[in-house]
């Protein structure tokens, strides 16, 4: 990874902070990192051009992953899946989104796996547009909401039949099971 000399690096970070109107607290937090970690984030931000809110997410997640895995932030940012996300073709927003998805997956491995399993179980329900299934935020609670939308009695009957069939063949049970599977 390319490195800057310390003074130049500090100056560039200051300039970035001014340009993005970062709060003094956010800037101080970034500047409290070891030099190589500061530089690694700075290089990432050349691509992403984050403002205050996205940067705070990155700072939180990177610090928390580093503490949990006992790795440096520079090490984390060198991970293959993150480098791949940075290379995502498209706009700055596309890159930012891809990096945040990957970083969140590293930060919350079991929660994102649960989300993926629930998504797969929902896909397997194959309910089309008639029935929408939704969950409480971050799966806190125990209520799954199924909303059936119909424009006439036939559509209603069709939706109910589909629901009944998914209940009978166990596919709905797999959605509930996925919610507890960590």
């Amino acid at each position: 990874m390319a490195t800057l000399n310390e003074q130049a690096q500090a100056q560039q970070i200051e300039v970035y902070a001014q340009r993005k109107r970062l709060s003094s607290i956010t800037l101080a937090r970034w500047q409290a990192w070891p030099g190589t970690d500061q530089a690694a984030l700075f290089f990432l931000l050349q691509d992403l051009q984050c403002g205050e809110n996205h940067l705070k997410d990155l700072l939180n997640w990177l610090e928390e992953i580093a503490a949990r895995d006992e790795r440096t932030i520079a090490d984390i940012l060198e991970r293959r899946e993150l480098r791949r996300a940075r290379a995502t073709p498209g706009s700055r927003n596309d890159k930012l989104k891809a990096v945040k998805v990957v970083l969140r997956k590293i930060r919350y491995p079991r929660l994102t796996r649960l989300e993926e399993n629930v998504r797969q179980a929902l896909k397997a329900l194959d309910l089309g547009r008639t029935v929408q299934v939704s969950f409480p935020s971050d799966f806190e609670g125990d209520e799954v909401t199924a909303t059936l939308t119909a424009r006439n009695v036939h559509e209603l009957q069709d939706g109910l039949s589909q629901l009944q069939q998914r209940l009978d063949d166990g596919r709905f049970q797999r959605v509930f099971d996925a919610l507890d599977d960590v």
Partner: protein
Amino acid sequence: MYQPTEILIERGEEEAPVVQRALARLPELPVRIVEKDWEQEDTRPAGMDPFGAGKRRLFFTRQRARFLEHCPAGTPGLVCCNYLIVSLISNCPMDCSYCFLQDYLANNPTLKVFTNSDDLLDEVAQVVDRQPWRQFRIGTGELSDSLALDALLGFSADLVPFFAARKNVLLELKTKSDCIDNLLRLESHGRVVVSWSLTPPAIADAEEHGTAPFAERLRAARRVQQAGYKIGFHFDPLIEYPRWETDYRQALEQVFTSVDPRRVAWVSFGSLRITPPLRKVIRQRFPQTRLLSGEQVLCDDGKWRTFQALRVKMYRTLITQLNRLAPTVPVYMCMETAPVWQKVFGRAPGCDKDVARSLTAPNLGQEGTHRAGRRAEQLTA
């Protein structure tokens, strides 16, 4: 050992017994007499860590508000255990990185000790003696450690005999210390539960600053139990980190090879919960902490917790282990939702009295309850 930097005494309280006891034990410390509203002036200690510095200023003052309060865990949406709290001390000599006092008492410039313990006892007597048919659990460990300062302040000598003489109330002294010497000289008649908050040694060493090490807490628990007290354990906060399962299993094993499970009043579990402002304070005061690295999400009550499926797994794992080691010990969860109770125990309590009764009745018997003859419901599935 707690070492204050100065003693502050509210004018008029100089002769209070607790003040005299402390002055006798800390004769070298500078003493200042201050007016009763001294704290309302700008008295926060200066420096990088005013909260930490405030802990070392010992302030003796009268409590002018009520002592007896309902535990704040009775938040809407959470299962409550009808616990009452009284505080003779506000602020704690220990400094756990996750402690809610860092936010709750953020502007508190001192460690406050209330001089009017007789008023506290009167207030409790008014409530518990007038309702002899009800059973109560009252704890002192909400705003401070119950025992960490007992060698200095000696409050146990006021509290234990008072509660030992009452048949319908259990006093819980909750601690992370090994300061039990005063207790060994007192008779509890089974109505005082001394309980320890425990985390595995790796967490205790890294995050619970100024507390007794895990092994010392267990040694103290064994001595207190042998002296006739009931004891309890709180795995609260339950912290999720890469080795949580192995470490907590080992901790439970160690507990129940150290003490007699038949005289354990209760064990509780409660997931780590952190408000957003507390999260900021933790980052600032303990930048090296690993506490914030768990898979926590913001819950409906405005606190970050380990996400539900994972904390249910943690509760189930540890309660299954507990049931193997000590099948008759009452167990409950602190500040949890009914859906989580349902998933962990197979059913949620019908009302908060269910939980309270499952904890008081096995420890006080049916004496003093208007539901005499009715078996206490154990919530363990």
